[in-house]
């Protein structure tokens, strides 16, 4: 029973520490800060992973300017670690915190698994939207194409009519040349004078 109480307390302390770190470096810089603590030997890789996992599961996300903390802030982190290790640390010391630097990001986060689904859903919606847009575009192009086809057939009809007129005109010119030939021959004949002996 005592173990369970301690586990709950540890969870709460972990949450508090995580919140402390997130409020100062943000989710974006948290992995670097934890790497730094790992390098210093303050925490293990397991703790680091757990903290990152925990941070990802939070609804709220923080965006911080840098992973760096002041000496005082590092000292508070050390106190949290010591408290997690079961050492007696004054709560007041932990609550006397330096000012927060990270800003709360307005996007609400869902649980990682649901996030993937959501992102897939969004992506799917985006793709569907894109497909829909393409379909609309294709439909528009088809309508445009039909219009163009109608225009082309009208132009073809006009072209045929013009060709027909051109042929008619050519025939007319040809015939006119014939009539003129006959006329000229007959005018020449009219002008001819002959005398019977």
């Amino acid at each position: 029973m005592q173990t369970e109480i301690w586990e709950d307390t540890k969870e709460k302390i972990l949450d508090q520490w995580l919140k402390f770190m997130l409020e100062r470096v943000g989710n974006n810089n948290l992995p670097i800060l934890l790497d730094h603590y790992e390098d210093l030997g303050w925490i293990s890789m397991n703790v680091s992973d757990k903290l990152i996992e925990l941070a990802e599961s939070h609804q709220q996300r923080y965006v911080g300017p840098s992973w760096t903390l002041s000496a005082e802030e590092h000292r508070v982190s050390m106190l949290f670690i010591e408290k997690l290790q079961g050492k007696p640390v004054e709560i007041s010391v932990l609550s006397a915190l330096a000012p927060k630097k990270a800003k709360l990001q307005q996007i609400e986060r869902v649980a990682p698994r649901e996030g993937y689904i959501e992102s897939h859903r969004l992506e799917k919606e985006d793709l569907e939207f894109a497909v829909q847009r393409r379909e609309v575009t294709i439909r528009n192009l088809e309508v445009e194409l039909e219009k163009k086809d109608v225009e082309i057939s009208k132009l073809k009809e006009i072209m045929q009519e013009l060709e027909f007129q051109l042929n008619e005109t050519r025939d007319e010119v040809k015939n006119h040349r014939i009539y003129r030939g006959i006329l000229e021959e007959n005018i020449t004949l009219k002008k001819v004078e002959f005398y019977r002996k």
Partner: protein
Amino acid sequence: MASKNKVKNPAPGSKVMFIGVDLGTNHTAISTSEGKKNSIFSVVGTPKDAVASKFLKKEHLFGEEALTHRVALNLYKPIEDGVLKNQPEDIEAAKGLIEHVLKSVDGDKDKQKYAIIGVPARASVLSKKIVMDMADEFFDGVMVASEPFCVAYKLGKLEHTIIVDIGGGTTDLCRVHGTFPVSDDQISTNKAGNYIDREFVRLLQDSYTDVRVTLEMARKWKEQHSFVGKIDKEIIVELPVNSSILKLSVTKELKHACESIIPDIISGISKLISTYEPDFQDTLRSNIYLAGGGSQIRNLPAVLEMHLELIGGGKVSIFKDPVYGGADGALKLAMDMPREFWQTI
């Protein structure tokens, strides 16, 4: 569009009649824009004496009627070998002929009359001038045009076509290529219907001693039986020999007589093809049309095609209306002629 300048709708009140005339050696055909047609033999007869005049009760007889009473008449055939003779009596006879055929189609009424008269393809300037002057008094406007060209115009074959018009006096060949034909496009030969008649008579006289055959008889037999090439049935006619009538075969003589015009036709076609634009020679040789009375000779297209094989082949067709082809073509030409052209003439 093509008819906007034509005299197809005369002004109200003014009656216009267009006329096409084929003044042929044997037949004179007339065709009018009112749809009337007539064709008669180109023969005019005047009574020999007062007795004949009293008996016939006419001063002039024309066509078949003149031939029927030829014993009592002085006969005039004003057209010889396709050309109007330049003698006053022949010109008067031709005038009578024109007046007669014109009257037969109501052309003597008070109308404006515009006519085109078909003349042989290579008729001389003098010949055409005589025809024109002779016909001038009957029409408000008159022109002459090449007879085979008139046929081509009627056919609507005005490009890459050869018309072979086998008439009574002349066989006219005309190459039509979209313009009015010039002298190089036309060939005329005297080997035509009358030549066949003369040959037929000569061959019969050679074959049968003492046979008495006139050109008139030969012409009738020719019109009934003419052929070239091969036929299945013998042609038997009643030939006067001395004072008897004998039924004799004239098949060989008629065949030879009819075939006597073929060499000149082939030679003419060959010349017209060989002097034509090379690109269109094949089209030209595929568009050969026979017109005139001679086109009715049986097997003629096939035999001509057979002869043409020796010079690269050819397609020969027959113009369906041998009697009125020339007159109808002249009429069509007269109707299509722009109005201002008639006023000019």
